[in-house]
């Protein structure tokens, strides 16, 4: 058995040691390994091998390269490598190794609480510089937590914030470190987020450093969320902690559940620079004069009630339809705006008067800042693409997404926001388009296309090439070449995912290429269409390369198409030419041999001529049979003709002889 390689090369520039993991620098689910620059072994770098099943935030890499702050782990390079432990290709990020250790290996750890001055100097001040850069670039980190912080060697031990792109935004964040709205969403559906979300995470991290442990230690995620809902984040997270006034000001500002009132980067910058004010009490949501009991829980705020309704989805419709909730809102809460919003939520057409739709809309009315929740589908609008990327194949997710679009819940959510989210306009448009695309079943359409349209950096999910981590059209053919080399039993070259991936990434399509993939009438057309498509991709590449294994596989899959030709010699000739063409690795050459309409038409024409000749011979044979039956009469008739000719000839000879004799004797 061949030994697995111990070193893996990235772009011939870096060598990653497979057998030298560095768990101290893991950013789960990403795992760190020792790495070395080929030409500069003094550079202290690590390789973070990302989970290939999770989308990597490749779109942030160009932005990150513009950040020149020493308090953010510096990304040096990235790529995709064959990773022996996984037996497949995985994305890898090359980072400069932080000089110091991680602050917390696990969020369950406890450590010696830090002094405020140390926290401000070593963490908040550097973090401010980092987050200011992020704010200016209009991106969010979404992975700020103590287990992603490292003691730095730069400038006197200031902390370094770790990686933020190896996994989807905020997906690895614990409930404690995320705002309430983020906790309400599925971790995959938390969305890209905004600077305000990072500020919240910053606040919780400060609190952790201050206390020496994560807040709400020992509480489950649901308990943490419920505590935040009932007491507010500051109250829930700091409940047993003694906090100085200085820190209280910052923490109240950063942990404000109203993201409009939450401290911004500039606020924390001024605080770091010594500006002090009074801690601002968070304005809490209005409480009802009496509780609303649902599921044996007494609710005083709409937000809490909405949360319970979501957790008890199918039963929530009762309190909506029976009017009890409406009564409570009007009489106990006394918030006219909420009452109007609730009534507006129930005001749907007869067609849309479905329980799920009503519940979703009512929950939005009760808590507009929460993510969109539809049965088990819980995501911010920005988190929809990632939810589809990870769960789009699941029937439940697909159905929920389709119904959300069908009922116009996104539009309703947008209308419920206090301000129009201009930053989401493009996404709204894409989601509206997704509604149409999802209903189409042709290759290159459907939910698969929606997934890739909404997630441009997502690797292709087709089982054919999934292990090769294909993230762009240029890496598709090399992956298929590897597939062809390894696999003997490839039945088809392009499935729905590949078709959708190509449709989303390849601009060279004219529209007809994908249609033929679904052709059921002609058994040979789908495979020909698949190869035509791949050939088009090959020829349009920046650098046209041959793919011999793929060519051979394509030639083998095209073997049945020789049956289109009637003539055996043509079949043999085409089959032989196909093998040769396939071996060149250029699919266009293979197609020119097998997909030549002139040869097909010529063969058909010659076949028709052969049929007519066969028929003609059959008729002649029938005539022969008939003649055999009439042979007596024919031979007599013909014999009489022949005998008269013979007689004539004999007579001529005799006459000549007579004349000659007469002439000679008379002379």
């Amino acid at each position: 058995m061949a030994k697995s390689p111990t070193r893996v090369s990235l772009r011939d520039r870096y060598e990653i040691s497979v057998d030298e993991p560095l768990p101290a620098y893991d950013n789960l689910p990403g795992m760190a390994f020792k790495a070395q620059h080929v030409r500069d072994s003094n550079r202290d770098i690590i390789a973070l091998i990302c989970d290939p099943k999770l989308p990597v935030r490749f779109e942030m890499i160009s932005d990150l390269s513009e950040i020149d702050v020493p308090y953010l782990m510096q990304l040096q390079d990235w790529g995709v490598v064959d990773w022996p432990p996984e037996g497949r290709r995985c994305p890898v990020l090359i980072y400069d190794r932080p000089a110091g250790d991680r602050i917390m290996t696990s969020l369950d750890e406890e450590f010696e609480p830090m002094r405020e001055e140390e926290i401000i100097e070593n963490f908040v001040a550097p973090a401010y510089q980092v987050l200011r850069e992020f704010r200016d670039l209009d991106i969010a980190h979404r992975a700020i937590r103590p287990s992603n912080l490292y003691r730095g060697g730069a400038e006197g031990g200031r902390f370094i914030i770790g990686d933020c792109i190896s996994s989807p935004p905020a997906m690895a964040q614990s409930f404690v470190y995320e705002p309430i709205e983020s906790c309400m969403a599925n971790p995959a559906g938390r969305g890209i987020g905004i600077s305000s979300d990072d500020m919240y995470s910053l606040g919780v991290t400060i609190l952790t450093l201050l206390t020496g442990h994560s807040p709400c230690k020992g509480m489950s995620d649901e308990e943490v969320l419920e505590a935040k809902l009932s007491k507010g984040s500051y109250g829930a997270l700091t409940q047993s902690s003694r906090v100085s006034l200085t820190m209280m000001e910052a923490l109240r500002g950063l942990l404000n559940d109203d993201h409009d009132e939450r401290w911004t980067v500039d606020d924390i910058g001024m605080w770091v620079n010594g500006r002090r004010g009074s801690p601002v009490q968070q304005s809490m949501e209005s409480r009802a004069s009496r509780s609303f009991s649902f599921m044996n829980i007494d609710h005083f705020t709409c937000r809490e009630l909405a949360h319970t309704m979501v957790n008890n989805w199918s039963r929530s419709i009762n309190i909506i339809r029976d009017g009890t909730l409406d009564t409570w809102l009007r009489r106990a809460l006394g918030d006219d705006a909420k009452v109007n919003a609730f009534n507006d939520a129930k005001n749907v057409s007869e067609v849309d008067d479905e329980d799920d739709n009503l519940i979703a809309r009512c929950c939005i009315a009760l808590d507009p800042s929460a993510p969109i929740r539809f049965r088990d589908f819980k995501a911010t609008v920005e988190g929809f693409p990632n939810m589809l990327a990870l769960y789009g194949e699941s029937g439940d997710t697909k159905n929920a997404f389709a119904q959300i679009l069908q009922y116009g819940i996104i539009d309703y959510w947008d209308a419920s926001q206090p301000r129009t989210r201009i930053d989401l306009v493009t996404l709204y448009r894409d989601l509206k388009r997704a509604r149409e695309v999802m209903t189409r079943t042709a290759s290159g359409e459907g939910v698969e296309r929606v997934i890739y349209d909404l997630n441009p950096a997502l690797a292709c999910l087709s089982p054919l090439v999934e292990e090769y981590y294909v993230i762009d059209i240029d890496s598709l053919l090399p992956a298929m070449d590897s597939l062809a080399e390894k696999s003997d039993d490839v039945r088809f070259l392009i499935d729905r995912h590949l078709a959708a991936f190509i449709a989303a990434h390849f601009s060279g399509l004219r529209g007809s290429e994908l249609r033929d993939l679904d052709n059921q009438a002609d058994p040979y057309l789908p495979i020909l269409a698949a190869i035509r498509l791949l050939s088009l991709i090959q020829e349009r590449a920046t650098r046209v390369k041959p793919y011999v294994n793929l060519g051979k596989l394509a030639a083998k899959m095209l073997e049945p198409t020789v049956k289109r030709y009637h003539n055996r010699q043509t079949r043999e000739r085409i089959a032989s030419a196909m093998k040769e063409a396939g071996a060149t690795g250029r699919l266009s050459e293979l197609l020119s041999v097998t997909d030549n309409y002139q040869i097909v038409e010529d063969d058909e024409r010659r076949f028709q001529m052969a049929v007519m000749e066969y028929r003609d011979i059959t008729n002649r044979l029938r005539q022969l049979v008939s003649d055999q039956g009439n042979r007596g009469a024919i031979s007599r008739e013909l014999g009489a003709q022949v005998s008269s000719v013979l007689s004539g000839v004999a007579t001529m000879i005799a006459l000549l002889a007579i004349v000659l004799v007469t002439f000679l004797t008379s002379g």
Partner: protein
Amino acid sequence: MAKKPQKAAPKGNQKGYVLAWVIAGIIILFTPSTVFLLVIGMAPTLVAFFIVDRHPLKYTSRTVGYLNFAGCLPYALDLWENGGIWDFERLVEIVSDPFSLLVMYSTAAVGWVILFLTPPVVAAYLSVTYEMKEKRFKARQEELVESWGRNVRHGASEMDGEEEPDRVDDVGAKASDGNAAG
């Protein structure tokens, strides 16, 4: 064997007959001895023409007649040389000579022999050529099937609207049935 119905002679042929009789009349008028010689010497031809030969193209009559004429010609020449066209004495000498009659009738007999021998030879030849053609046709059909597959056979039968195509092997069986009937 059933006789084929005689077609009515076209009008053009009737004119030819009339012309022939007119010319014959003229010949008889101006060469009576030769005519009598030919009448006597070509009696077998006359029998064949008027009695035996029913074919419209008169192949039997031609076969016998050509050779019969060749047998009569020396005597006609003799008549012309020695007696002249009005010399009936020489005519009588010739026709009363058994050898002369033997020669004239023998050549007619040769014609009959040719007539009787030729059809079997032709039949044998046809048999051989039929066999060769059949082999050639079948071989060609096999070549076509070899090159184009069985679909060429099915295609041919579809063109003829037949449900089952004629099998090439059946052709030989039908030919042998035909020979037995003949």
